[in-house]
Each structure stands twice: as structure tokens, then as C-alpha cells.
């Protein structure tokens, strides 16, 4: 465990996802095993080899006024929506709403996006070509920059301890949680709004991922396309959404009588130093991240009861991760762990995935039940660990811990450790 004894706890949760416009609807869909993947009905979609994605169930325009949305990229709007839910869930005041207050100098923000304002960049270029530079919105730059969501959330809640946006592709928002833990441990902040957001379901993004043969092309069965650990998995499904956690020093949370969802126990990182997009097939880099998370959290391999896997439904990645889990925990401890891959339902939120799955891990510990991975008709022969499938799985009572894995193009490996709050 790190020398610093500050314990960091999770006191607020917020999300808008392909499964629901908030945390309760997202969680109940996960327990019900519902897919958030739907066909795309865009004009010209037939030109693309992939014609489905996991889109939000609640459009930002349903919950935000139009004039505000004019100057927000979609990823920024949904980050604000998720942050508001988390802030309220943590019991903090906003505007006319009563609640606890926090000194702005002790409040930080870490909100990541892997890609940033892709829609803004591309739409603005169309405006420029068709109507000239004067018609390009003066808000284009703050809408396309990947730190936009972090800055906007900081402004919204008056966070002056620092506002950050770590970028590491699909590990981005797991890094955000790790950095937030460090901000609190190091004494820079008492409370941090931490999370991730992504909204780049766009023809270019589908074309680009399809071009690298990374996406499932199961066009005739979109809801069955994301199938981690199934023998016939053929790639991931692009998703969009945002998730935000309020992290807080235990001392600060207890002093105000806050409800504690779970303990954010620590975080581990590594670089594969192997390939810009392929995972290291031995899983050694991912294993290092998990071992370092255990060390940072002061946990032993046998303390881990559950792992929320990165599991994206790609042929290579899913089994490499299982090898990494065995490498990190040892064969015996690894066999005691129950594993699930929520991307089977949410699709892959890229830079939003690490935060959403951290949020799911927190709920899993709090509720004592692991959502099942869906669409495993035929378990891959290479899978020799306990994957939760069919029905959600009860977790034991008592002091248990879990890991959330997130890996990103570039060889970024991040594992976040959570403990149940007792």
C-alpha cells in the first residue's frame, strides 16, 4: 500500500449510457441482461460494413436546453449530464437545490475523453467548405478539444483545485479515476469529480475502426454482436456515453455524513511497449497493471472476488486478458474470481469505458451481485476462468474487493481496485 494512509471513497455516481439516461436505469438493464446495441438508420449507411452501434437511450436535447447544446459537443453535454447526477447523488448543493457544500479550492475534476469533439471537428469543416470561415462557430475550438468536458465540468461546479483530462484511448477514464485517487491522497483535493465521456458514433469512426477490422459486422443481429468470450465473436461494437464518480477523502465524506458506495482502493498502470494497436498476446503488460493495482491498494490476490474485464469481444484481446489475470493473481486465485464483460450490453464507450465500468464495479460491490455477460452461446475453448453468464451472480458478504481493467490503443493498461464499504 502507498505510504499515504488517506482512504478515498466513492460518494456519488452518475451516467448516461446506451442502457439508460441515468444510473438506476443503466444498472437495472445490466441485471436484466439487455443489449444497448441498435441498428443505425442514417442516410447512406448501406455504404458501411457496420450498420449498428450502442447509442444513448436519452438524447441530450431531452434534458438540456437547445441554446446550451449549440456550444457543446455531444461528449461535453453528456459529461455535464452525468456529472450533475453524480453531484446530486453525493448530496451536494447546486443552484437552488439544498445540500452539502465544498470549498472550491479543495474540489478537482478529472474527466477524460479518448477522442474529444469528433462530430464538431467534422461538422465544422463541412460548414467551412460550404459557407466560409465566418460561419464556423466561434465555439468550435472549445467544442473539439478533448479537455473540453473537463473544463466545462470544472466551471459548472466551481472546481479550482485543478481540472485535468488524461488521454489514453480506451483506458482514458480508468486513468481519470486513478489520477483522482492520487489528487486526494496527495492532499491536492478533498473531493474530485472523476469520469469519462465519449460520443463519436460517426460514419468516419465506423469506417476507421472497420478498416482495421476491429468491429463486429454482425449486421443481421445487432443485439447479439457484442459477445465477449463466445467462440464466434468478431470484434467490438462502438458505443457512446458518459459516467462520473464523486471521489472523496473518507475523512471529508464521514464528516458530512455522506453515503459511501465503495472504497476506491488504488490503481495500477503499465505500458505494453509492444504494438500501437495489438494487445501483447502474453498479457504481461496487463498483468503488471493488475499487480501494481493490488500493491497500491494493499490487497492480496485472494482478496479479489470479482473482475470487471476490459473484454471487448475481439478475438485476440479477450483471451489475452484472461492470461493476464492468471499471470497477475496466480492460477489458484484467478480461478476463484468471477469475471464479467459489460461491453456485451453497453458496447465499447472507448474513453468513457473505464469510468462506466468503474461505476458498474462499485455498484456490483455495493449490491453484491455481478451482472452476467450476454451473448455467450458457445464459450471459447481457450476460456478457463469463471465467466458470469446466463444469470447475475451473488457475491459473498463481507470485506471483498474487485478490479476493473481497461486497456487502450497505444499499449496503455490500467487496473482500478475497489473495496466494499463496510
Amino acid at each position, binding site marked *: 500500500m502507498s505510504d499515504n494512509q488517506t482512504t478515498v471513497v466513492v460518494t456519488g455516481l452518475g451516467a448516461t449510457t446506451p442502457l439508460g439516461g441515468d444510473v438506476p436505469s443503466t444498472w437495472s438493464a445490466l441485471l436484466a441482461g439487455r443489449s444497448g446495441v441498435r441498428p443505425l438508420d442514417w442516410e447512406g449507411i448501406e455504404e458501411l460494413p457496420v450498420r449498428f452501434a450502442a447509442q444513448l437511450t436519452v438524447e441530450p436535447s431531452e434534458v438540456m436546453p437547445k*441554446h446550451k447544446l*449549440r456550444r457543446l459537443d455531444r461528449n461535453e453535454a453528456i459529461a455535464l449530464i452525468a456529472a450533475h447526477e453524480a453531484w446530486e447523488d453525493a448530496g451536494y448543493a447546486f443552484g437552488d437545490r439544498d445540500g452539502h457544500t465544498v470549498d472550491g479550492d479543495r474540489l478537482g475534476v478529472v474527466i477524460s475523453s479518448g477522442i474529444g469533439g469528433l462530430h464538431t471537428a467534422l461538422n465544422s469543416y463541412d460548414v467551412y467548405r460550404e459557407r466560409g470561415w*465566418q*460561419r464556423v462557430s*466561434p*465555439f468550435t475550438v472549445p467544442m473539439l478539444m478533448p479537455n473540453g468536458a473537463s473544463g466545462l465540468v470544472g466551471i459548472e461546479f466551481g472546481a479550482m483545485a485543478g481540472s485535468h483530462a488524461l488521454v489514453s484511448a480506451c483506458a482514458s477514464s480508468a486513468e481519470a479515476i486513478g489520477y483522482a485517487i492520487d489528487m486526494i491522497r496527495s492532499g491536492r483535493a478533498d473531493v474530485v469529480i472523476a469520469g469519462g465521456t465519449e460520443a463519436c458514433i460517426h460514419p468516419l469512426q465506423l469506417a476507421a475502426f472497420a478498416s482495421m477490422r476491429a468491429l463486429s459486422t454482425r449486421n443481421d443481429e445487432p443485439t447479439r454482436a457484442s459477445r465477449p468470450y463466445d467462440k464466434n465473436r468478431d470484434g467490438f461494437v462502438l458505443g457512446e456515453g458518459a459516467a462520473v464518480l464523486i471521489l472523496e477523502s473518507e475523512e471529508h465524506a464521514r464528516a458530512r455524513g455522506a453515503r459511501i458506495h465503495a472504497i476506491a482502493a488504488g490503481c495500477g498502470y503499465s505500458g505494453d511497449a509492444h504494438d500501437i494497436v495489438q494487445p501483447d498476446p502474453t498479457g504481461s503488460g496487463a498483468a503488471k497493471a493488475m499487480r501494481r493495482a493490488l500493491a497500491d491498494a494493499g490487497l492480496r490476490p485472494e482478496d479479489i472476488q470479482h473482475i470487471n474485464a476490459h473484454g471487448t469481444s475481439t478475438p485476440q484481446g479477450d483471451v489475452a486478458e484472461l492470461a493476464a489475470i492468471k499471470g497477475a493473481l496466480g492460477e489458484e486465485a484467478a480461478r476463484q474470481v468471477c469475471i464479467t464483460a459489460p461491453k456485451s450490453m453497453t458496447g465499447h464507450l472507448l474513453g468513457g469505458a473505464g469510468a462506466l465500468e468503474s461505476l458498474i464495479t462499485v455498484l456490483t460491490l455495493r449490491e453484491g451481485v455481478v451482472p452476467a455477460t450476454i451473448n455467450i452461446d458457445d464459450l471459447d475453448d481457450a476460456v478457463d476462468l469463471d465467466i458470469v453468464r446466463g444469470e447475475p451472480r451473488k457475491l459473498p458478504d463481507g470485506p471483498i474487493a474487485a478490479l476493473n481493467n481497461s486497456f487502450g490503443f497505444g499499449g496503455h493498461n490500467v487496473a482500478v481496485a475497489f473495496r466494499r464499504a463496510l
Partner: protein
Amino acid sequence: MPAATEQEILTGLSEIVEETVGIPAAEVTPEKSFVDDLDIDSLSMVEIAVAAQDKFGVEIPDDELRNLKTVQDVINYVQGLAGASKA
């Protein structure tokens, strides 16, 4: 096109302000200052000016935009230019 009346310009401008920054059109009255009364920032003023150019068919150069402090200033500017082009 025939020159717009003061009321037409006010109506058009207040619609632009409502759409751009969400201030109800009824609050956009001639004596209001964009910055001090309506709390509109400089980037939003650029958006409003471009929309006003499209709506009223008059160019508002950046140098002029800086001098247009109130809603009435914009009405006068648009009317002045429209009048000049008619003459």
C-alpha cells in the same frame, strides 16, 4: 429588399439572441446592453453578429461590432446601412 422597420429589426434580433444564448426574446429590449444587461460574452456576440448579417443582409465588421453596445445600437447600425444602400 425594402429596408426593415425598427420593429422588424428588433424582432429579428431578439429571435437571434433567444436562439443563440437562450435569453427570452421579450427581454431583448432596445435600451439593454449586450454585455452589462444581457450578460452575453464576446464569442456569443460573434455568433449573434454573423446571424444578424445573414438575417438583415448587412455586413458588421469586427471594428464596428466593438462599438455596438446596446440593442438600439445594432438597430441603428442596420437601419443606417440599409438606408445608405437605398440612397
